[in-house]
């Protein structure tokens, strides 16, 4: 009895109170185990953990949006009421007016068939405001979220907005009914570093303006550390650490939190010999814009413009830039998967001049590893089949192929038994190792890595980076490493190219780039990342 009374008195200042929240699937798998926290107006709580640690599902529970087949225990008080005991109708009043949510991927969270005015104003219309009032409110909201010229944006569709604008529109949509609690589910993961900072700053200023409580969900502790007061670190559904953020940052208690905090990957492997193997000269990639019935070329979108660089054996070159800067186009052009102009001279051969038959034979010298470890492996083939595919071109006996397979699996630190598994039976890190093994089995001199770690969580990232460094030493491999994560680039690459809008902003030795950036954009990137 005493306990409940105490609860009631504290609820006046507390906006959100989660007590003993546990979520299970029907198969008894525990998704969330005994989560407790309180949140008052003006406070910011960060929920941090790897993918699958139960961050998003706890927030869906707070919104009352959980799928019905999940078993729920515990209480969630939004204001004085327990949202889990409400009926659907009462819940929908709480949603929007009391508690609102911003989703990770604005491209899919905004209805592509509605204009901005309708997207932002829909909940207002449902509350019975007149059309004129709604328009006024929407314009105010759009101004609040930092969109210049909101009148122009009103009539646009989501696909006509930039990534940052979409995220802002989604924030405006969540704020329409002036909620007291705002949940931001990885609000910046889909954005590049400079936009990330802008959006987080915006959320902070809006929080102060509206006096909201804010819940920030992220997989990256470093993103939230300047913006949150309280921190909950989740691992496999359990809160392993909880408390004041500053305290945890200065004295992390568990090894897991320490791992999450760690963003130092060491330094690049020192170079031994200086023998250039790759010269790229005036490389350009253009995509034609075709229009009309006859598909005639009307113009070009430039993805890469006049790029030149050199690469020595055993050296690695980092390519950095925001999304849309042309990084992936560069990777595909270098391995001749898309057309390009200019010279790519690898081991004395100009790849852009080779006829397709000679090129096919030369392909074993350069290989590519893709970003998404789920999409880059054929789901219908076993690991063994996937890896040995590249060997089929040379006429090898079965015994030789088995030997190659064994040694390459050994190199990427996988057990030989993995050869019989299918991709869906592997974890993200294991898949990326298989993708690496597929590239390594043909013994390339140059490996192009297109964001190979960005789909993985911190611990796995670290392991993959260690592996890459080790391989670089033992095999004398040259890397072209594409990433938006400057931490990783710093630890692996000898030289860095910063790309923006298809052009080279800066091309510099790594130490020089980080200690003395020449360009304003590079400086912004570095301050945003560290």
């Amino acid at each position, binding site marked *: 009895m005493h306990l409940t009374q105490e609860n009631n008195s504290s609820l006046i200042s507390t906006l959100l109170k989660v007590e003993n929240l546990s979520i299970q699937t029907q198969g008894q798998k525990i998704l969330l185990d005994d989560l407790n926290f309180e949140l008052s107006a003006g406070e910011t709580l960060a929920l941090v953990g790897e993918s699958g640690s139960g961050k998003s599902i706890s927030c869906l529970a707070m919104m009352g949006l959980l799928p019905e087949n999940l078993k729920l225990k515990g209480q969630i008080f939004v204001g004085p009421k327990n949202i889990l005991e409400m009926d659907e109708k009462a819940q929908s009043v709480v949603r929007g007016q009391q508690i609102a949510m911003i989703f990770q991927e604005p491209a899919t969270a905004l209805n592509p068939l509605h204009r901005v005015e309708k997207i932002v104003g829909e909940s207002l219309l449902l509350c019975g405001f007149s059309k004129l009032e709604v328009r006024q409110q929407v314009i105010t909201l759009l101004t609040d979220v930092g969109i210049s010229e909101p009148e122009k944006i009103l009539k646009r569709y989501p696909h006509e907005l930039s990534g940052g604008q979409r995220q802002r529109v989604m924030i405006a949509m969540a704020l329409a009914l002036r909620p007291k609690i705002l949940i931001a589910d990885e609000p910046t993961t889909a954005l590049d570093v400079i936009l990330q900072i802008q959006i987080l700053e915006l959320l902070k200023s809006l929080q102060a303006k509206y006096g909201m409580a804010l819940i920030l969900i992220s997989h990256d502790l470093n993103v939230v550390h300047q913006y949150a007061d309280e921190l909950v670190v989740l691992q496999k559904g359990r809160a392993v650490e909880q408390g004041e953020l500053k305290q945890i940052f200065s004295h992390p208690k568990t090894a897991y939190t320490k791992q999450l905090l760690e963003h130092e990957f060491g330094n690049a492997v020192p170079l031994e010999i200086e023998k250039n193997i790759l010269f790229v000269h005036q490389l350009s990639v253009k995509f034609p814009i075709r229009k009309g019935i006859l*598909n005639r070329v009307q113009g070009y979108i430039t993805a890469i413009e006049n790029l030149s660089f050199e690469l020595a054996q055993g050296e690695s070159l980092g390519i950095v830039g925001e999304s849309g800067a042309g990084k992936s186009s560069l990777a*595909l052009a270098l*391995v001749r*998967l898309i057309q390009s102009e200019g010279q790519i001279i690898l081991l004395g051969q100009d790849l852009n001049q080779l006829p397709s038959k000679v*090129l*096919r*034979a030369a*392909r*074993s010298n*350069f*290989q*590519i590893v*893709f*970003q*998404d470890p789920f*999409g*880059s*492996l*054929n*789901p*219908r*083939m076993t690991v063994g089949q996937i890896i040995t*595919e*590249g060997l*089929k*071109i040379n006429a090898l006996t079965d015994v030789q192929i088995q030997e190659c397979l064994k040694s390459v699996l050994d190199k990427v630190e996988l057990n030989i038994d993995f050869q019989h598994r*299918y991709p*869906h039976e592997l974890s993200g890190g294991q898949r990326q190792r298989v*993708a690496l093994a*597929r*590239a390594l089995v*043909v013994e390339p001199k140059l490996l192009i890595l297109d964001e190979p770690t960005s789909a993985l969580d911190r611990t796995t990232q670290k392991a993959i980076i260690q592996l890459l460094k080790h391989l670089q030493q033992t095999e004398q491999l040259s890397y072209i490493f594409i990433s938006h994560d400057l931490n990783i680039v710093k630890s692996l690459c000898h030289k860095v190219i910063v790309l923006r809008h298809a052009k080279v902003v800066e091309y510099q030795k790594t130490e020089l780039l980080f200690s003395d950036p020449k360009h304003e954009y590079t400086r912004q990137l570095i301050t945003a990342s560290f």
Partner: protein
Amino acid sequence: MSLITRSRLQRFRQHKLGFASFILFSLILVLSLTAELIANDKPLLVKYEDSYYLPVVKAYPETTFGGVFETETDYKDPAVQELINAKGWAIWPLIRFSYQTPNLDLAVPVPSPPSKQNWLGTDDQGRDVFARILYGLRVSLLFGLTLTFCSALLGITVGAIQGYYGGWIDLLGQRLIEVWNGLPMLFMVMILVSMFVPNVYWLFFIMLFFGWTFLVGMVRAEFLKARQLDYVRAAQALGVTDRVIIFKHILPNAISSSLSQLPFILTTNISALTALDFLGYGLPPDAASLGELLLQGKNNLDAPWLALSGFFSLAIVLSLLIYIGEAARDAFDPRK
């Protein structure tokens, strides 16, 4: 068997109506394939003077059984039956009529109504309707299955090439197929068939010629999607040839949606063949076929057993195929 295939089979089995239809359809297919052993005007096995004879498999002259003629034995002839029964015995199939045997012992004028001897009556030439349905189903199903298989093969290949290479090949292919699909298939087949001597093979090629485009669009769309995927790009970067990428990498991933369409294509092909037979442009006139039975039903409205048996056999087979198709479509659904 991979995990995906196993879970698909399981989902197919869980679809009760579809799975029951599948069993029933298989039964019908097996029955019609063994039609000679069920409905025939020859005995299955004859024992005559200590030796055994298989008239269904081999033709024996009447002299074998002590008759006078050198020609093949007419086992329906009471004289021959007497000869056999005197020095041995004969096992007859369930129905003692083949699709071409007229019942000569009928007391009523043809077409005669259903009786103990002719379960579904006889047609206007005194032939047993049940036997004709059995043989007709065999022709329809075999014809339909082969036609479906060949047109699927052609459609998938063309769709794969169009989708994988894209660009001009795709553009030209799509325009060509749009024009092709615009042609009224039934009328074109009728015109072409009347130019040649009616014969199963001609009919097959002509129908294939106009009917192979079913799957092109679907396979093409799957390939357009798949060629952008990283595992295809990785294979390209390894220097794997286009042929291997198309058939080994993309096709196994792209084909499931097409496979689930096969029962529906089979349905279309069987109805098309029936329609042609009904109009008299299909199989040769004396061949047993469902369309021909329906035509007889139309010509002999006073003998409703003709139209009714034609209608029901066609309706049952087509419904079974639709249910199988629905179950297959659900089982292959990638979202499950």
